[in-house]
């Protein structure tokens, strides 16, 4: 059951990595498109995209920590 949970974490990670790559591409395109705009809606959108980028990193770390702990647990069981 622990292995099954680890597989689910890996599946989530793969989807998340692909999403992170897409989001980074889209963010670049958005920056080019609204270049120099100081409109509040643009600034809010960019703030959300920056925050999402940060969250991608944090989620990645949480997934790695989960998988590591699960593998330690499996080793401890022998």
């Amino acid at each position, binding site marked *: *059951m*622990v292995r*099954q*949970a*680890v*597989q*689910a*974490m890996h*599946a*989530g*990670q793969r*989807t*998340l990595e*692909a*999403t992170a790559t*897409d*989001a980074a*591409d*889209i963010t670049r*395109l*958005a920056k080019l*498109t*609204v*270049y120099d*705009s100081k*409109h509040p*809606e*643009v600034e*809010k*959108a*960019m703030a*959300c*995209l920056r*925050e*999402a980028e940060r*969250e*991608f990193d*944090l*989620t990645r770390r*949480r*997934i790695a*920590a*989960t998988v590591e*702990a*699960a593998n*330690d*647990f499996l080793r*401890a069981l022998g």
Partner: protein
Amino acid sequence: MSSVGDVVAQLREVVDRLDRTVVAAGRAQTDLTDGHATFTRAGQGSNHPKIRLAITESDTAGAKAGRISRLLAEAAGHLATYINIIAPGAAPSRESATHSGPSGEELVRDAAKRASIFRKASRATTRNAEQVGDYAKSFADFIDAVRPKGTTSQVQRPEAPPANPPHAPGDTAQSLAVTAAVLVAGALHLFDRFMQKRKESRDRPESTPRSDSSHGEG
């Protein structure tokens, strides 16, 4: 960017692509939440620090993926608002952008659209049925006009269907279709009788003053 149109088109692409990442992040969240639920089941009755850690970390990972999904949706929403500010009406409604299934509102709207299509079809059928009535009438007139003099054939004149039948709208199309069918049958019957009369008059040329012309065709 050469024009507002270019900026709007490119921003719309950004919004569309962001909407797709919202859905993808949601899928990632589902996987991570499933993983957390499985760790929780696996760790029932166990106080091993590593399984407890896997449970809490996977919970946080799922929550964070959910937060990513919301942040991307929020970014798309702000950009859509911005598009509508620089080009009013250019960005699609944000209501259903990231929902896979139709909302109640959408279902009602679709149902209304279908009802409207039915009303249109019903009106078209009414028009067609009225036209069939008109054709049948003009056909009767035509037969009257070309009827050989001296014959006593009586042409039945079909009545035109009522313009506004006093039925419920749902019955209208069906009852008009029946009316139309009856009128067409009537018209065919009249045509048949006309051809028969014509044949008879050809067979007896002495009784029909206008038979010379029809002889040429036979």
